[in-house]
């Protein structure tokens, strides 16, 4: 009797251990899907104007009136191709992306001039203030601050969209990698050690 009881207890304990071992869930950050989504996002920001489709005059800046009825003009590309397991398709993320695309048109020449570059935490960093006139420096400071505010919002929004706010750091790291990867020749970036390198 006593032995059976002990045996029962032991079996129960072993069963519990097996079950809890099976039930342990490690949610791994889907690095490969996230990487694809990030790369496509970055591509849409940096290279939007470089890889330009033949300019269709009916697609050039619409007035609000036109826009309210021109439902078939796709402003944001890539909505269909988002990786199925990694979601970057929320309204908030689309809005941030549109904001970054518009700002990029002004930032472009400052990247090329080497005044700013991709820092090593997914943000834009100052590299050489002297590459810009004092007059432009004020405007560029405003833009860099606004861009970094958007990027911080973006990484947080993507982590939240996937139900894992704690993924923010990993999202940031993946983007950091992709900004550098997609940077055109001549642009500058900071490596892990904080040193500036030119592409």
């Amino acid at each position: 009797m006593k032995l059976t009881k002990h045996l029962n207890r032991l079996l129960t304990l072993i069963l519990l251990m097996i079950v809890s071992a099976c039930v342990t869930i490690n949610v791994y950050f889907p690095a490969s899907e996230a990487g694809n989504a990030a790369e496509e996002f970055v591509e849409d920001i940096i290279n939007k104007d470089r890889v330009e489709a033949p300019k269709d005059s009916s697609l050039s800046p619409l007035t609000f009136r036109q826009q309210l009825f021109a439902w078939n003009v796709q402003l944001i590309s890539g909505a269909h191709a988002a990786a199925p397991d990694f979601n970057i398709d929320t309204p908030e993320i689309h809005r941030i992306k549109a904001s970054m695309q518009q700002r990029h048109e002004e930032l472009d020449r400052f990247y090329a001039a080497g005044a700013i570059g991709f820092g090593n935490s997914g943000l834009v960093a100052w590299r050489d203030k002297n590459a810009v006139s004092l007059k432009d420096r004020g405007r560029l400071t405003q833009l860099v601050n606004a861009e970094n505010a958007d990027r911080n919002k973006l990484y947080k929004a993507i982590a939240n969209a996937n139900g894992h706010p704690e993924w923010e750091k990993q999202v940031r790291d993946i983007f950091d990698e992709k900004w550098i990867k997609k940077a055109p020749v001549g642009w500058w970036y900071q490596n892990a050690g904080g040193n500036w390198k030119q592409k």
Partner: protein
Amino acid sequence: MSAQVKTRLSLFDNQFSLSHLNVKISDGQLLSPYVYADFNQLPVNFKNGELFFDGQNLSVKQINFDDGQLQLAFKELLTDSQGLKQLVLEFDKMPLQYLLKTYISNAASVPSSLAYFDIDGAVKGKLLIKQHNLQQLAMDLDNISLSQSDNQQRMLIEIYGLDGQLVFDRNQIQSSQLSFEQANLLETIPLSRTKANFAGSAKGFYLTEPLGVPVFDGKLGISKLDIDLSTEQPKVVFNGALFPVSLELVTQALGWPVMQGQISGLIPSVVYHNGALQMDANGVLQVRAFDGELRLSDLQASHLLSAYPILQTDVELHGIDLEKLTSTFSFGKITGLLNGEIKKLLLYNWKPAAFKADFKTDIDSPSRRISQRAVDNISNLGGVGMAGALSRTFMRFFEDFGYEQLGLSCELKKGVCKMDGVAPAENGYYLVKGRGLPRIDVIAYNRETDWDQIVSKLADISKGSGPVVQ
């Protein structure tokens, strides 16, 4: 930077005082968080300065600034380790556009959207800063105009003829008054003469009287508008009602086919916070059009007056007269009454990005007939591809056909419309279920269609170009 200085200097230990200070700065540049100046372009003068430096902090009893266009009188200025501690500043006819473009637009810490902000006119006033905070401000505005555009030169908001007396006290509630002659939202919605009486302090502002804002030929009545400044981002609570606006004017303003009808609504509560706008569950906007009704509820919006607004709403349709609808859009005549709903209609930058829509005609409609042309168009929309085939058969002798019920549902997600109709058919669904003789049924088999294609076809149809036979 180079300057010409003329003054009487007294020194004592490491303290000094300057009186009758006149400084002219004619070379160099200054970049600080809120001020940028290029003295090469525009030399500046400081006159009649009385300053005292006690070894640590600067105190300026008075000094006058003059650059030819802008005159400012600084008094009782004190600084300390945290920066500007106290200041009395008086200005008369301060030219706002000049101040903005010359000294503020290119400063380092102003918002980047300021580059697209324009202001015109001059103000008179006085401000008091004490203990590092704005304590008091009094300003007279006379015929000011201002606008904010996005970076594609599209006007988000324009205000003309802004007048008022603003009185602000950090700690004590003060009353103010503001009015404008005319305003425009998104280059499309015109507002006319509005006058607001309000009161507040550093904690927030509220209306002291209900406000009426004329919109098109109607009016937005605002019974409550509270701006709470105690939170990190201002929070606005708004109660109001929209008194009927003619749909004809709205559709004209939007460049749409002109529609007859009215828009009105009850807005029991709208909260705006952090760029997001949310209408209370009981709020309903009603559009009377085509002898029927559309009801918009559960409205949420984000960054409405920006380059990328997001809007979501639920829509219900009741008793829409199809004859009137199809004639407005040159769709081909259909008679009958249409009901339907669009759940969670999501608009990105005013374009549909997602929704779940379902439309069906009322079986009890007094008249249910559909013309050949409408059959062709519906077939084409549903991708049925028998468009034009009708005219090749004996059916062409009939101008129109009776129908039992017609309808369409579409769930839009990621650019694809998942479609269904009024009733199931073998391997497909009925878009039009016929009635009587001759009987015509339109059955579709495509369950998924590209949204862009549907919109393109709709645009072609309403432009009058015939459907493409596929």
